């Protein structure tokens, strides 16, 4: 029997990935963080971590992120793993649930890594069927995340963005845009990162991931490794700026998985994401105001309508200052006084 939690909605602002070294500090300090995301696989059993998460779930909106479902496996889903994922969702009642466009299981082996698909109609039919199964089992929409990759398949008939767009159409799933993964894959496989983001259906993107990556030099090859082991680098912030410019604010997660720093570093990165988003939206509003001000105005119908200020009464002052009050009305009034006198 699962307990009832308050239905906390994930806001369109930054949250952090909950990592085990930070759990006790989160419980005692209860720092300001928009929301939390957990890896589903870490909470499929029982134990102290699960109890701690139940307490945190009372305070913070929660997202459940699966890493082991292998949605791209041609053999279909592991029903036992899916049942465990359903158990986690029933227990913690998260506001968002997500998984990856990848496969980890084949030939009876679990590779504990996320491998890319060959993007073609055959793979699309398999992934769409698997996503349908997940959404029917969990009785909710899931978000599917783009992958960081080091190789691609030569005979793919579409690119990953086209594949994801088609998956959204066929299954009604949402998307999790991992901006760091876009940068890593675009560099490693030599394509345009911004064009990838622009090719995704904007309305379907329900969450964004931000993280750091490592840069390795192997002979002549500079390869970006998706290790989630450092601060978000400038190139990923720039791509995030591009994404927010196109999408508007979205729930944005700071992910950190190797060499996890103190909690305040994660909270600081989340703060920067919020500030960058606020700054983009402020600049957009300013630009819209300036464009509005530059437009030629039609003749005012009534004296006060053309004057725009924050307080209605100030419009009257401003109109008066500009001499918009009709002289005819004043004359009539003055005339009235004359009669009375």
């Amino acid at each position: 029997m699962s307990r009832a939690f308050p239905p906390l909605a994930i806001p369109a602002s930054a949250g952090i990935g909950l990592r085990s070294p930070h759990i006790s500090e989160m419980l005692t300090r209860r720092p300001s963080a928009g929301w939390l995301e957990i890896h589903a696989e870490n909470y499929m059993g029982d134990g102290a971590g699960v109890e701690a998460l139940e307490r945190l779930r009372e305070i913070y909106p929660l997202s459940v992120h699966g890493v082991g479902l292998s949605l791209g496996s041609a053999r279909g889903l592991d029903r036992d793993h899916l049942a465990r994922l359903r158990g986690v969702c029933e227990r913690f009642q998260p506001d968002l649930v997500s998984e990856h466009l990848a496969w980890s299981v084949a030939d009876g082996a679990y590779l504990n890594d996320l491998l890319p698909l060959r993007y073609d109609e055959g793979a699309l039919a398999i992934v769409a069927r698997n996503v349908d199964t997940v959404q029917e089992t969990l009785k909710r929409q899931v978000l599917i995340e783009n992958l960081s990759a080091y190789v691609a398949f030569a005979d793919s008939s579409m690119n990953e963005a086209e594949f994801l767009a088609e998956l959204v159409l066929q299954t009604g799933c949402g998307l999790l845009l991992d901006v760091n993964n876009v940068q890593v894959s675009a560099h490693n496989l030599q394509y345009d990162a911004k064009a990838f983001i622009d090719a995704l259906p904007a309305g379907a993107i329900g969450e964004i991931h931000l993280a750091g990556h490592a840069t390795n030099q192997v002979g002549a090859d500079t390869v970006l490794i998706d290790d989630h082991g450092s601060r978000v680098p400038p190139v990923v912030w720039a791509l995030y700026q591009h994404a927010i410019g196109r999408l508007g604010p979205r729930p944005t997660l700071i992910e950190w998985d190797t060499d996890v720093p103190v909690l305040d570093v994660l909270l600081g990165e989340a703060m920067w994401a919020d500030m960058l988003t606020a700054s983009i939206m402020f600049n957009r509003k300013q630009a819209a105001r300036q464009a509005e001000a530059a437009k030629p105005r039609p003749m005012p119908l009534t004296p006060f309508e053309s004057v725009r200020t924050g307080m209605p009464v100030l419009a009257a002052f401003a109109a008066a200052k500009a001499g918009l009050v009709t002289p005819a009305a004043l004359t009539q009034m003055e005339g009235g006084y004359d009669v009375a006198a």
Partner: protein
Amino acid sequence: MLPLEYLQTTMARSVLAIEPTVSAKMLTAGKADPLARLRIYQNNTRSSLTAVLMAVFPVTVRLVDERFFRYVASEFIRRAG
């Protein structure tokens, strides 16, 4: 065209470093050598599965020494695949 399941089986065996490995012609990697990039998946898989085994058998790690455990673990992962 290979069906997806056959492709994934071939890739999984390549990632676990079991012969025969996937053909370089099936992969692309920008300007880089695809088989060199495949080694990233091999390393990721071996190190993450080894870490799981070390977490499950901490006493054995101390008894036989971590370096020997890592060697045995990588042999086990290769053969178990």
